[in-house]
């Protein structure tokens, strides 16, 4: 039979029976297991206070084991339940030495109650947990180390400039991705993580990526590749080139659960490579485009490698040895080639152009360029370069040279012509300064070329004409008009001769004005002839007037006498005769006026007069001679005009008689007057045959006549409108016409209302004619 005491002694649990005689807590009994774990003997412990038997551990001053034990005892007594103290350190003295052995304990204090329920004593049962504790500590350290390692790995993973991602499962779910890769693909991590690859990058589909990844996942064979993906970066789609490696990610059982992709961006390298390739391509194209041949000459051996094109330019189908090329150079160009080679060795550059004679004897031009390479001793070893066929250029240039020669010949011819011409020639720049006069002008004036430059030429014009000629030139220059003026020129022999100067405005290719090129023609003979003609007409018309005056006198006398004796019929006939005499007078007057205009002797006698009332007088007179047409006055107030009354009357009469003459089928003429912008306007409107538009600007020319149909030829010398136009212009006014063929014409003139106060004297409008130089 096993005794209670035996169980107590033999159990493997260390047990101590402690009295509840606080604060002593006397040890009542101890079993063998306890003695064993604490290296103690029964005598050292029985009837001793537990704290005397196990004082505070000197190696563990901070653990407060005494206090913890007292607390545990008190708790067990108070709660009448087991109280456990866990994992505390209490080093055991190594008996016989001063040393202690490190021990960790977990101890339970269990109260044993008597019949009354009071705590009779405590069972104190420590278990040695040192091994266990130490193991735990090691484990903890291992975990920390592992954690640190993991953190390092993670940091590396996160910070490496290489993109890394782990794709899991057949959907290639993004399990992990580092910021570098996020940046490469231009998406934030949160948009990528835990999503299938092709959901994030739909554009990566169909590039074979899926197949590649699938291959790696199934076969476990890594894959290296490059893809170009369009990626939105900084709001711009960029073509990004990525090099990537896909490796299988294996579990411990070697099964593949994911794919690790390591990605590096190589866009810059790819671009650089592409650019290089493009540059090379361009270079190649450029060479092709200009059809350059290339060569590589080894100067030490004399061997030369040439391109096919090089051979072609030399007239060979395929490259041949160097001496073959040299042989076909044009003999005349050997020396030049030699010289070029000699210079090349010194300068480092080869350049020459030479003719090549092909087998068919055709001659071609080649331009050889090259760069000389030297060895360490500055000895030329090699020439690399190109050959260009410049036959076309050369031919074009020869053609050009021929043209230039031809032009030079022409220039010489032109010079001879201009020098020999009886016409003076001149040129001016855009400011009107003379830049050239020919020999003829120099001969005329007897002064050297330089004296005529700028405005020097004007000094040779006679003083009376100088201002007029100069002013006309400036006016035409400012308006870029054709210049024409007549003036008298002082010749070297002392004579004064008339000439007419013409100048045609010249433009540059861009349309800007460049100046004048002009001529001067001696018109003295014409002027003399014109003068003689005018003189003749003047004298003739004057002489004609004398008999006309007599005829008119007789006619009027006769008419008066006949009407006095009551011979009405005869009297009427004589009256008609008088009208015809008047017409004759008018024609003679016109002729005289024209000769005066031509010689500038038309004279004006300006006075102030009331225009409308004078106009009314003229219309009254004309109405008396015109039975058919009513002359309708449509007057607005005009006021006083300062002009030659008779001459203005002559113009008005001319316009009205013309209106009557050219409107045979109409019965009215309207005469309008008005004031507009400081001018007096007079218009004579008829409803007659009108003037064709192409003739409108000719009606004021000398000798212009309206041609009617066969039934209507209109009499007259065609001088009336010319004279009218001259009169109005010399009175400072304007004359014009509006007309529509078949509907009638409106002839108008405008006169300034108030001219400068004049003396009322004979006002001469044109320079006095002082002809003839001889």
């Amino acid at each position, binding site marked *: 039979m096993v005794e209670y005491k035996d169980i107590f002694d033999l159990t493997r649990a260390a047990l101590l029976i402690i009295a509840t005689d606080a604060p002593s807590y006397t040890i009542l009994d101890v079993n063998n297991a306890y003695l064993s774990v604490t290296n103690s003997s029964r005598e050292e412990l029985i009837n001793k206070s537990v704290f005397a038997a196990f004082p505070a551990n000197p190696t563990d001053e901070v653990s407060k084991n005494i206090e913890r034990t007292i607390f545990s005892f008190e708790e067990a007594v108070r709660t009448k339940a087991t109280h456990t103290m866990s994992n505390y350190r209490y080093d055991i003295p190594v008996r016989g030495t001063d040393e202690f052995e490190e021990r960790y304990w977990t101890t339970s204090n269990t109260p044993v109650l008597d019949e009354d329920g009071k705590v009779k004593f405590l069972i104190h049962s420590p278990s040695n947990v040192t091994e266990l504790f130490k193991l735990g500590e090691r484990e903890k350290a291992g975990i920390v180390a592992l954690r640190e390692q993991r953190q390092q790995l993670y940091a590396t993973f996160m910070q490496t400039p290489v993109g890394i991602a782990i794709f899991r499962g057949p959907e290639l779910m993004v399990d992990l991705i580092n910021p570098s890769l996020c940046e490469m693909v231009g998406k934030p991590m949160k948009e990528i993580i835990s999503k299938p690859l092709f959901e994030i990058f739909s554009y990566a589909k169909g590039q074979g990526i899926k197949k590649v990844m699938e291959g790696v996942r199934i076969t476990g064979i890594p894959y290296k590749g490059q893809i170009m993906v369009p990626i939105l970066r900084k709001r711009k789609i960029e073509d990004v080139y990525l090099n990537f490696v896909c490796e299988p990610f294996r579990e411990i059982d070697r099964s593949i659960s994911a794919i690790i992709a390591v990605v590096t961006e190589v866009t810059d390298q790819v671009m650089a490579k592409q650019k290089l390739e493009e540059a090379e391509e361009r270079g190649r194209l450029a060479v092709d485009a200009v059809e350059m041949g290339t060569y590589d000459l080894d100067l030490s051996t004399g061997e030369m490698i040439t391109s096919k094109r090089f051979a072609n330019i030399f007239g060979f189908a395929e490259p041949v040895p160097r001496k073959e090329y040299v042989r076909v150079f044009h003999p005349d160009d050997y020396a030049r080639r030699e010289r070029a080679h000699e210079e090349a060795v010194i300068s480092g550059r080869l350049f020459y152009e030479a003719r090549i004679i092909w087998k068919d004897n055709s001659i071609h031009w080649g331009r050889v360029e090259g760069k000389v390479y030297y060895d360490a001793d500055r000895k030329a070893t090699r020439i690399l370069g190109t050959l260009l066929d410049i036959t076309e250029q050369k031919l074009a240039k020869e053609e050009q040279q021929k043209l230039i020669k031809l032009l030079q010949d022409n220039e010489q011819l032109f010079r001879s012509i201009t020098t020999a011409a009886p016409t003076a020639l001149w040129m001016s720049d855009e400011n009107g300064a003379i830049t050239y006069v020919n020999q003829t002008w120099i001969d005329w004036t007897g002064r050297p070329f330089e004296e005529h430059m700028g405005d020097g030429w004007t000094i040779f014009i006679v003083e009376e004409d100088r201002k007029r000629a100069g002013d006309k030139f400036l006016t035409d220059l400012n308006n870029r008009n054709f210049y024409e003026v007549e003036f008298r020129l002082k010749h070297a022999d002392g004579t004064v001769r008339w000439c007419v100067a013409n100048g045609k405005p010249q433009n540059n290719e861009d349309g800007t004005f460049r100046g004048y090129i002009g001529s001067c023609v001696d018109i003295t003979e014409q002027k003399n002839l014109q003068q003689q003609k005018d003189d003749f007409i003047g004298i003739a018309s*004057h002489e004609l*007037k*004398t*008999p*006309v*005056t*007599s*005829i*008119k*006198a*007789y006619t*009027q*006398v006769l008419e*008066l*006498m006949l009407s006095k004796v009551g011979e009405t019929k005869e009297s009427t006939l004589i009256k008609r005769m008088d009208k015809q*005499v008047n017409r004759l*007078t008018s024609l003679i007057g016109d002729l*005289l006026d024209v000769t*005066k205009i031509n010689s500038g002797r*038309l*004279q004006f*006698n300006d006075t102030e007069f009331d225009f409308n009332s004078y106009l009314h007088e003229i219309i009254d007179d004309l109405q008396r001679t015109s039975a058919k047409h009513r002359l309708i006055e449509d007057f607005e107030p005009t006021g006083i005009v300062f002009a030659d009354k*008779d001459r203005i009357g002559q113009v008005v009469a001319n316009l009205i008689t013309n209106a009557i003459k050219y409107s045979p089928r109409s019965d009215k003429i309207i005469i309008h007057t008005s004031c507009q912008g400081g001018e007096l306007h007079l218009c004579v409107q008829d409803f007659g045959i009108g003037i064709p538009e192409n003739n409108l600007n000719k009606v004021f020319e000398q000798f212009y006549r309206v041609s009617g149909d066969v039934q209507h030829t209109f009499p007259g010398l065609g001088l009336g409108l010319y004279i009218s136009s001259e009169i109005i212009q010399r009175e400072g006014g304007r004359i014009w016409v509006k007309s529509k063929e078949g509907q009638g014409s409106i002839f108008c003139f405008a006169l300034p209302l108030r001219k400068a106060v004049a003396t009322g*004297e*004979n006002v001469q409008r044109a320079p006095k004619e002082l002809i003839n130089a001889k």
Partner: protein
Amino acid sequence: MNVMKNIMLVDDDPGILDSVTVMLELGGYNVMSTDNGAQLMNMESDFPDLILLDIWISGVDGRDICRHLKANENTNKIPIVLVSASRDIEISAVKAGANDFISKPFEMNDLLNKIAKLT
């Protein structure tokens, strides 16, 4: 009945002298005529009531005769009408001291009116 006025007509063209004489006589004037302008310069008596003087006569300018007569106190009262085929010289005629001017050819009434005003 009024005494007929004497008019001196000077022109070097016989046709004019004749026709204008007829005209003036019809107008009621007594006409003396000459083709010699210089003759007028020496006139000392029998002064006419008006001189009708052509400017362009052979040997002498009508305007010079006019100026001479107007400068002479015996003759400066005699009205002078200068005549010319050219209208343009009216001004110079007036300058020469002429009382009026008429251009050839003229209307009979115009001439008679001018003369009537001056005599």
